[in-house]
């Protein structure tokens, strides 16, 4: 063999060897992951350490992003996508899927999922809910919560009342609890108000389908909800701008008798009130219908990521048995894996039961490009106007309809 031929062959062999090696093996891949926890003091450091020990070729850069009622978090993700500075992967919600789809921002996971052993530990129903309308799977389910009704069982007992099951029961209880500087219901009119508005207005007959916000039934349900503040005055006067922190603090301080949130705030609430507090599904509407918010959370890999394989290893690690349980402890939510959900004892039983009992009426927000705008701007602004008398409640419903079908 001539020297020149040998050199050519050796060069080609070296190049083909490099090309054949998986991308992450060429050096230590760094995966940037954006997350948020309701309790910002919680950190995924132990999960990161465990993953890095199992995957020495990958470094995880976990970046906590402020939630801000959801709007800060999602605005940051969309902005980073536009700027081309997005992380490799991040926690995401179903209601963002359409907008991500329009931005062509996500990497389909179907190829990765084919060979992933943990797939069967997540129920088929969850996979189905998370599937994109184009038939592809962009989301790796992570955990979930369901919005329910916290109530002060001691105060209701004193008033001789049962936990409310219907709107009528709820109003009766709210009126009975409103006295001596205590308000019956800690309404959330500020950031994230959709999860307080939805159970009463969507549960009362409104819907996100075309024309669903402007039926007589929908108008009536919304008027009923607004009247809790305007007519019956069973909510604190600060309700129009109260957000997560205010409603939870007021409930913990005993200034409200009922509040609508999810199991993520159990540690705080039980820490302050102990056995005085319990939970039930949100009340049902006059015709027996109900709606509560299915607070899903998944991980997704962004199409612009240069470390997709490494990112998949990380997000699949978080959705695998045991790790998913650890992750759920940090987020305060419920594990998505079947094996971790069995015999879940992290939260007191009564709150897990209230979550489970809420599942039949639990739905995510619509998968629509305008949903983030509805959550972040349209509903809070118009609800606040209606609650402070600056707008006819029916116009609020027209504004919501216009947002989705204008």
């Amino acid at each position, binding site marked *: 063999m001539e020297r020149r031929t040998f050199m050519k062959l050796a060069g080609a062999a070296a190049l083909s060897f490099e090309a054949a090696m998986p991308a992450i093996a060429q050096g230590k891949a760094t995966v940037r992951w954006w997350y948020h926890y309701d309790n910002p003091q919680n950190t995924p450091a132990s999960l990161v350490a465990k993953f890095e020990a199992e995957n020495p070729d990958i470094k995880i850069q976990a970046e906590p992003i402020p939630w801000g009622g959801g709007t800060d978090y999602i*605005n940051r993700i969309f*902005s980073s996508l536009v700027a081309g500075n997005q992380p490799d992967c991040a926690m995401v919600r179903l209601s963002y899927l359409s907008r991500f789809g329009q*931005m062509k921002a996500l990497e389909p996971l179907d190829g990765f999922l084919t060979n992933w052993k943990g797939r069967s530990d997540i129920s088929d129903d969850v996979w189905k809910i998370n599937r994109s309308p184009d038939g592809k799977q962009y989301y790796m389910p992570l955990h979930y919560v369901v919005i329910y009704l916290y109530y002060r069982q001691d105060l209701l007992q004193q008033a001789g009342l049962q936990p409310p099951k219907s709107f009528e029961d709820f109003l009766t209880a709210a009126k009975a609890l409103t006295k001596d500087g205590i308000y019956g219901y800690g309404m959330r009119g500020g950031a994230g108000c959709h999860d307080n508005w939805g159970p009463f207005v969507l549960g009362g007959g409104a819907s996100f389908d075309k024309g669903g916000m402007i039926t007589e039934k929908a108008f009536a349900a919304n008027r009923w909800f607004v009247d809790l503040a305007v007519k019956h005055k069973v909510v604190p006067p*600060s309700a129009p*701008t109260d957000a997560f922190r205010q409603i939870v*603090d007021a409930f913990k301080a005993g200034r409200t008798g009922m509040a609508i949130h999810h199991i993520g705030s159990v540690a705080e609430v039980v820490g302050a009130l102990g056995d005085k507090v319990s939970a039930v599904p949100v009340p049902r509407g006059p015709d027996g219908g109900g709606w509560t918010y299915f607070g899903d959370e998944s991980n997704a890999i962004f199409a612009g990521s240069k470390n997709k394989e490494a990112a998949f290893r990380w997000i699949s690690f978080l959705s695998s048995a045991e790790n998913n349980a650890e992750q759920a402890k940090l987020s305060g939510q419920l594990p998505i894996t079947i094996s971790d959900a069995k015999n879940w004892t992290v939260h007191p039983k009564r709150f897990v039961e209230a979550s489970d009992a809420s599942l039949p009426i639990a739905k995510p927000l619509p998968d629509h490009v305008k949903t983030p705008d509805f959550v972040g701007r349209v509903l809070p602004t118009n609800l*606040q106007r209606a609650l*402070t008398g600056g707008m006819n409640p029916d116009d609020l419903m027209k504004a919501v309809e216009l947002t989705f079908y204008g």
Partner: protein
Amino acid sequence: MNKATASGAMLRAATPYGFLLPALLVTALVILFPVLQTAWYSLHEYVLYDPDNFRFVGLRNFATALSDEVFWIALLNSAIWVSGIVFLQLLLGLGAALLLNQSFWWRGMARALVIIPWALPSVIIGLMWTWIYDFNLGVFNDILLRIGLISAPHPWLAQPSTALACIMLALVWQGFPFFTVTILAGLQTVPHELYEAAEIDGANSWRQFLHVTLPSIAGIVATAVLLRIIWVANSLDVILVMTGGGPGYATHTLPLYAFLRAYTGMEFGYAASLSLMLTAILLGIVWLYVRRQAGEMER
């Protein structure tokens, strides 16, 4: 003039421009380019989550803004916001500067303390004042209840009638030290002989203030007011933290509205047109100031 002298003169003439050129280039890059880009976007329908539908729409975004109820609410709020805050900051800053210009034993410490609100980040100011006004736990309600001015806590930030004024108060507190420090610097340049002469002429303290102090610091005050108008008109961080623009549109100002349309709605074309309108208004104010300054220089 020989050739060497002529080229030397040209070099001398060009030197200032040479020194200014880097600054001009940087300014063009970081200010002029984004402004032109914003102007370009304002003529388009540009929704960030739908970048493939980037369409030229001419002046339609501006026409939409003029028929948008929220634009007019935000414009009115901006006018109240800027005039109220700058006036109160100037008043408070002037008073504090006059006090700090006096001689007293802890003057050094007082001068250092007064700067603290100015040194705090706006987000901290917003969070701090949000808790001060809190319905359940806020000290503002607590103080008013204790002194008997109110009989029940008031939701200061949740009522459209009080929300804007409450945020303005927070910003007045944060920004008055700027006037204090600027005016104090001006006061220290007023020649003492002027006061001695005024005193000999029989002028009392008020007349000295009116005829000596105020004319001497007028230029500084005008510049400080102009800067403050621009900063306050553009500021949105404190509002964003304290109310997010609510309740309803009660605390929406023009930059906040543009911000919300840009970052929540992702409607960059429309948000760009709102920003340009604000820029045009501010440029009008700057033009008035420059014309006034030029007039004074000619005198």
